[in-house]
């Protein structure tokens, strides 16, 4: 079928910082040309292999050989040895970091990649609308195993032993949560899946529900068996229509097969799942608010205790877990607690899914073992910062988290390390910021969100955040004072200590961490009335450089408020009193004559 006997895949592309790729491709092609092999060997550039530390990489197909750290001058040897004489170039093969042995089989190289997919094991692989594809990949086997071979106590012991902590953000032990719900005495209990994903930049849960809905359904049934519940509810925001559609299809298919409903697999255990829709309020991700919303009440949090495990939905014991937490459960049951707890760090086991967004090359959904560093995530998996700009910070945990700086890049990611660094794991949103982002404006942006989403029940959150937002606005406008900075910090601490629920208690995190890590930038806004990143409109001025201006009038014509004056072929001038800082003139100027002061 194919005219080609071999394909040589070279990693690279315009976004890649490995600039050698082009030279390697060029040399490989020249070499093939000179040996009359262009007709039978194809050289092609591909995307990232996720092994950037070892790049550039040349992969030979069909024999699956990986050559790492390839230099342009290696092209001749690869063609002469590998392609012509069928001998692998062992000095370029990837070496096992432990044994130092060269690996010539691409299949074994997988475990040296940074990403490990447990939660996303079926995502992008199976058809989510066909239960058969899930079953063919060991779907519902964990439920079968639990119902036939294990007592509820044994299941809880296994989940506890795995060391898994809740992926919704707080990091509470899943097994312990199940145990508490089991201990509560009641005929009627509920399993709730929290699919109210609300962090800006987060799309982990949506992707799991859209790509592998059955893994969540199966895990909820396992949880129901463990805690003694026969009812499951998924609280999902109406803003996720496709996830809802696929969940409905999945639930119906599972019911038709008898994998949900009465007497599952002939074991006498009954469990069914229904959907509850949320209107998209951020606070409803908090479990007590979520439960109230499901009951038809206002989505407002209440003080814990009583915890939902004692009195939750309709006053009955309720276990609430996040989508990602559930999706890992079937794997834990089938592969065992010992296997799961062998992955990750001492206190955070397993893997975590992150949604990489912001100023990063490979925006995407990734899953890495706990303990992977931020540097590996941003610069290897994420492919580095867009347009060759400088890394400035990374906001983890959405508006409840903090912004980590350059000095935190080598921190291994886990629940405790992120807290120590001044942020949180949160649900897994990661927003990467570059040198063009202003840390005062960014803090204001995240607070915008919290102010909007505050339910208004407690004063610290309702009033405090509003006042903080005003202060940040003043600082952005150049009207802040040093006293304001102290006041801001003080308010952060008070709100953290006194707010009623998680939303309020964590809302000052972005401000606190940004003030800690980028204090100079705050001071510059206050004392010098300057925005170092050039983002705060009221602190910048567009100026025409007299040396470059040729008087072409292009800027004056594009200005929407007629702030630019000047005769043809004469130097133009911008009137700062009229200028609205839209930047249209700078974009239009062909002579780089307009700059921001």
């Amino acid at each position, binding site marked *: 079928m194919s005219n080609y006997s071999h394909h040589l895949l070279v990693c690279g592309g315009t976004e890649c910082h490995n600039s050698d790729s082009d030279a390697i491709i060029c040399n490989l092609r020249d070499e093939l040309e000179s040996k009359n092999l262009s007709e039978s060997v194809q050289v*092609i550039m*591909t*995307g990232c292999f996720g092994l950037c530390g070892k790049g550039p990489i040349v992969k030979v197909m069909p024999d699956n050989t990986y050559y790492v750290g390839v230099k342009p001058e290696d092209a001749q040897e690869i063609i002469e040895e590998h392609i012509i004489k069928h001998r692998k170039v062992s000095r370029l093969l990837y070496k096992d970091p432990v044994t130092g042995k060269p690996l010539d089989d691409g299949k074994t190289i997988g475990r040296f990649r940074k990403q490990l997919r447990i939660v996303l094991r079926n995502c992008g692989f199976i058809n989510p609308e066909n239960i058969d594809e899930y079953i063919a990949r060991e779907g519902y086997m964990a439920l079968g195993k639990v119902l036939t071979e294990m007592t509820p106590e044994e299941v809880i012991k296994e989940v506890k032993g795995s060391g898994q902590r809740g992926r919704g953000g707080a990091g509470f032990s899943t097994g312990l949560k199940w145990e508490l719900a089991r201990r509560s005495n009641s005929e009627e209990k509920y399993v709730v899946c929290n699919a109210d994903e609300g962090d800006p930049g987060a799309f982990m849960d949506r*992707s799991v529900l859209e790509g592998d809905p059955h893994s969540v359904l199966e895990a909820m049934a396992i949880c129901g068996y463990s805690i003694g519940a026969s009812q499951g509810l998924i609280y999902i925001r109406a803003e996720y229509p496709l996830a809802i559609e696929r969940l409905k299809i999945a639930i119906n298919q599972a019911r038709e097969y008898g994998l949900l409903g009465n007497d599952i697999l002939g074991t006498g255990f009954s469990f069914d799942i229904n959907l509850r829709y949320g209107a998209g309020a951020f606070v409803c991700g908090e479990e007590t608010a979520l439960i109230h919303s499901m009951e038809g009440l206002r989505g407002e949090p209440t003080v814990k205790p009583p915890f939902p495990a004692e009195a939750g939905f309709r006053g009955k014991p309720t276990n609430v877990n996040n989508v990602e937490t559930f999706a890992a459960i079937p*794997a834990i049951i089938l592969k065992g607690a010992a296997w799961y707890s062998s992955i990750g760090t001492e206190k955070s086991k397993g893997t975590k899914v992150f949604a990489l967004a912001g100023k990063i090359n490979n925006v995407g959904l990734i899953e890495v073992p706990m303990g992977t560093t931020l540097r590996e995530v941003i610069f290897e998996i994420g492919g580095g910062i867009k347009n060759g700009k400088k890394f400035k910070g990374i906001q983890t945990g959405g508006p409840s988290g903090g912004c980590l700086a350059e000095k935190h890049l080598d921190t291994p990611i886990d629940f405790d390390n992120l807290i120590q660094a001044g942020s949180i794991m949160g649900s897994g949103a990661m927003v990467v910021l570059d040198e063009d982002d202003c840390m005062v404006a960014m803090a204001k942006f995240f607070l915008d969100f919290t102010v909007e989403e505050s339910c208004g029940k407690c004063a610290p959150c309702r009033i405090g955040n509003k006042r903080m937002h005003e202060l940040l606005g003043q600082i952005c406008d150049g009207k802040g004072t040093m006293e304001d900075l102290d006041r801001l910090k003080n308010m952060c601490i008070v709100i953290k200590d006194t707010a009623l629920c998680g939303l309020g208690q964590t809302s000052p995190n972005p401000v606190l961490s940004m003030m800690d890590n980028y204090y100079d930038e705050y001071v510059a806004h206050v004392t010098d009335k300057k925005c170092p990143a050039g983002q705060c409109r009221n602190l910048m001025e567009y100026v025409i450089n007299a040396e470059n201006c040729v008087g072409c009038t292009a800027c004056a014509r594009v200005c929407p408020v007629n702030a630019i004056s000047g005769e043809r072929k004469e130097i133009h001038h911008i009137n700062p009193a009229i200028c609205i800082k839209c930047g249209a003139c700078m974009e239009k100027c062909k002579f780089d004559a307009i700059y921001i002061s």
Partner: protein
Amino acid sequence: MSKIKSLADLKKKRDELKVNTAAETGSTATGSIVQIKVAMATCGIASGAKTIFEFFREQLVRRNIEAVVTRTGCMGYCYAEPTIEVKLPGREPVVFGFVDLKRADQVIEKYIKAGELVDGIIPVNYETIDLKE
């Protein structure tokens, strides 16, 4: 669909499916026909995956190529949507990103018909666990 009444039934079902749908899902099995998966989570659809999905369904029939085209969830490469995975009989699956109609046409004409690779390949950059006992 008939009910699955016991764990033994479920295992039987799984084993049957593994044989029958090897062509549809198994990446290692040597299926005898071409398989194409189109990543169709919200994000993929938003960047045009539906058009690509329909293009393959229509064009493969029109060009007399026996193939299965299925939809799947997010493959994780948001920066390169729409993404597709193509598995030719007896070969490893290959993921192509930035698939517009022009590239989809190239995939059919060059890769599927002639085994020639086209631009936009995204190498697998992760390891996936295997739940088999």
